[in-house]
């Protein structure tokens, strides 16, 4: 936590309904907290909305964050909400510029917790070079929420060389995974009630805009498609890519990296890392001519040491993902109907 930004003196140590009333308490919370911490030229106007010019092709994305627990190793719901929308824009080939920030707070949320979340929002915005320009705060009665929900909507400028579209995917394109699987999902699960095991696994939440834009600078339209495998994990994203491109996908299990401790947790919990959520990973479908060079750039990136080419697009088995297992067998990789559930034995 940034100790140079101590919690401002407020009259209450928990959020109460008055903080969402639009009256004095709301102003106090916002002035001392949100506006001061996240200040920038557009936000400082405290208007109902933000007014600005944007030139060029624009991308827009929204996401709502309801994660429980709200604090976890490697982050909290605050930086998750900022990074998540920045990354959704990055997957459109766009550099996030302005974000909106909407809070639904549950009565009783500790002010210190809200402050810690705001600090990580500020840090995430600074790390990614984006500004919060407008927002909203509502408070719901105790029991009507789960401490804090956050919505962020982002707007960004599409890179001039970017042309990200599932229709651009061609047979022979290589599929690159930017790092090891399943860190975020396993971090969250290790916290949930009943799943008590000690681990040093931390979430991989991080902004992907800089690395993606650097790749677009260098490889432009040769990058045919991008997607971040968040909920549903890699398996779901690959199935969506197969469906969207109407092509098949061949992948090789041994090329997908899973860190040792994450793999161990998955074994113990009976979960397949291919279906576990990630928050700082992306899948790139690229022209085979540039695949090796893209991989090389990714390996140079501070989080890309374990990036690898995991497979390729094929005209065989249209819309289906087929994996060569570690031992050389072949099997279908399907979507799941819902969350993976812990098994009996």
């Amino acid at each position, binding site marked *: 936590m940034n100790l140079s930004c101590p919690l401002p003196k407020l009259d209450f140590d928990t959020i109460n309904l008055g903080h969402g009333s639009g009256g004095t308490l709301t102003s106090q919370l916002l002035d001392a907290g949100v506006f001061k911490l996240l200040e920038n030229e557009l936000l400082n106007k405290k208007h109902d909305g933000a007014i600005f010019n944007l030139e060029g092709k624009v991308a827009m994305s929204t996401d709502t964050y309801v994660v429980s627990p709200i604090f976890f190793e490697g982050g909290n719901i605050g930086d998750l909400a900022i990074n998540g929308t920045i990354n959704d824009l990055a997957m459109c080939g766009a550099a996030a510029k302005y974000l909106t920030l909407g809070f639904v707070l549950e009565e009783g949320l500790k002010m210190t917790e809200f402050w810690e979340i705001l600090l990580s929002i500020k840090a995430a915005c600074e790390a990614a070079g984006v500004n919060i320009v407008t927002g909203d705060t509502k408070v719901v009665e105790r029991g009507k929420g789960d401490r804090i929900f956050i919505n962020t909507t982002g707007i960004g400028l599409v890179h001039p060389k970017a042309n990200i579209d599932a229709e651009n995917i061609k047979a022979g394109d290589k599929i690159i995974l930017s790092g090891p699987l399943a860190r975020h999902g396993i971090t969250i699960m290790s916290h949930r009630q*009943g799943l008590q095991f000690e681990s040093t696994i931390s979430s991989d939440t991080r902004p992907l805009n800089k690395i993606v834009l650097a790749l677009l600078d260098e490889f432009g339209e040769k990058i045919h498609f991008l997607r971040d495998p968040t909920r549903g994990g890699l398996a779901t994203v690959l199935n969506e890519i197969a469906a969207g491109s109407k092509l098949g996908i061949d992948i090789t299990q041994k090329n997908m990296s899973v860190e040792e401790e994450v793999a161990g947790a998955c074994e113990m919990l009976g979960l397949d890392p291919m279906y576990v959520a990630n928050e700082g990973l992306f899948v790139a479908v690229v022209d085979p001519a540039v695949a090796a060079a893209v991989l090389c750039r990714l390996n140079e990136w501070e989080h890309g040491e374990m990036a690898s080419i995991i497979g390729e697009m094929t005209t065989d088995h249209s819309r289906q993902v087929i994996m060569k297992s570690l*031992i*050389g*067998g072949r099997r279908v990789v399907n979507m799941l*109907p*819902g969350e993976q*559930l812990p*098994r009996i034995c």
Partner: protein
Amino acid sequence: MKYLSEFRSPEIVEALLKEIRETVKGNWNIMEVCGGQTHSLVKNGILNMLPPNIQMVHGPGCPVCVTPVNLIDKAVHLAVEHKVILCSYGDMIRVPGSGMSLLEAKSKGADVRILYSPLEAVNIAKENPDREVVFFAVGFETTAPANALSVIQAYQSGVKNYSILTSHVLVPPAIEAIMSDEECEVDAFLGAGHVCAIMGMSEYYPIVEKYKIPIVITGFEPVDLLEGILAAVKQLEKGEYKLENQYTRIVEAAGNTSAMNAIDQVFEVTNREWRGIGEIASSGYGVKDAYSAYDAMKKFEFDMAESHEDPTCMSGDIMKGKIKPNQCPNFGTKCTPVQPLGAPMVSSEGACAAYYYFNMAVEEVI
């Protein structure tokens, strides 16, 4: 990862496959008893790597699949009508009951919680002294010790608001039921490794002798399964029948005596109904009278409508190894993991789910 990677080695797998190909002459049906083995076979693509004259037949060893619909209905009834905190292993909660699954009950407001261990349920009971807490204690011999321990622990710590809804089933009677079926074409069994880790090997010698059939107690990793298959094929080709233990790193001949003691303290052998198969004599565990205060069947009134299974579900034939999941006319059409007709399509160990998610043969069906 030690104890895992060496059992997933492509080189060892290839060497075993070569030896199996060189050994096998006849056509053999080998049944893997445990659903965990079925999933490993399918998930690793092993079914497509074996010579075509070895057919793997998928057995009844999926505890979720064989739990009768009546018991699912009872669990739902406890959660909805008695408003208990109903705790369950994860893969029970999507299994369809007559009216609804536990997942649907949860969405309608019932307090259904997914746990990894029944001991957590005892803790929940301690934390909620004004609520009744019921653990849905399903499983084969593997999960029985932990479920028994939860009762012992609740008893010893004076927790009175805890009970178990038990549906424990046993492997040896299931093997006997399969072998007694006149249409049975199984030539050898891969025994369920983790069941034998608890119970040891002694129960299987009489079955081997009575039915003159090879049984190889086998683990769950690719190398385990192929070693088990190879041992079974060697016996079959020589015309032998004996009990072998492939899973020596886990299974001891005498089993785990402290686990068996826990089982003996709380449970007694009873008749059990198996979903899709029917009642099998002495094929399960019930709670002993001494612990009836912890037996949800005795603790609660079950004033509920008669249970009924979907008559078009062919899970009984699938679990007896008579047909493969993709030979069922409803597979992948009327029956999917989202809209299942029966438990084998939703359980993580169910044969239908294994075929739906992983099997190449699915391509031809859906």
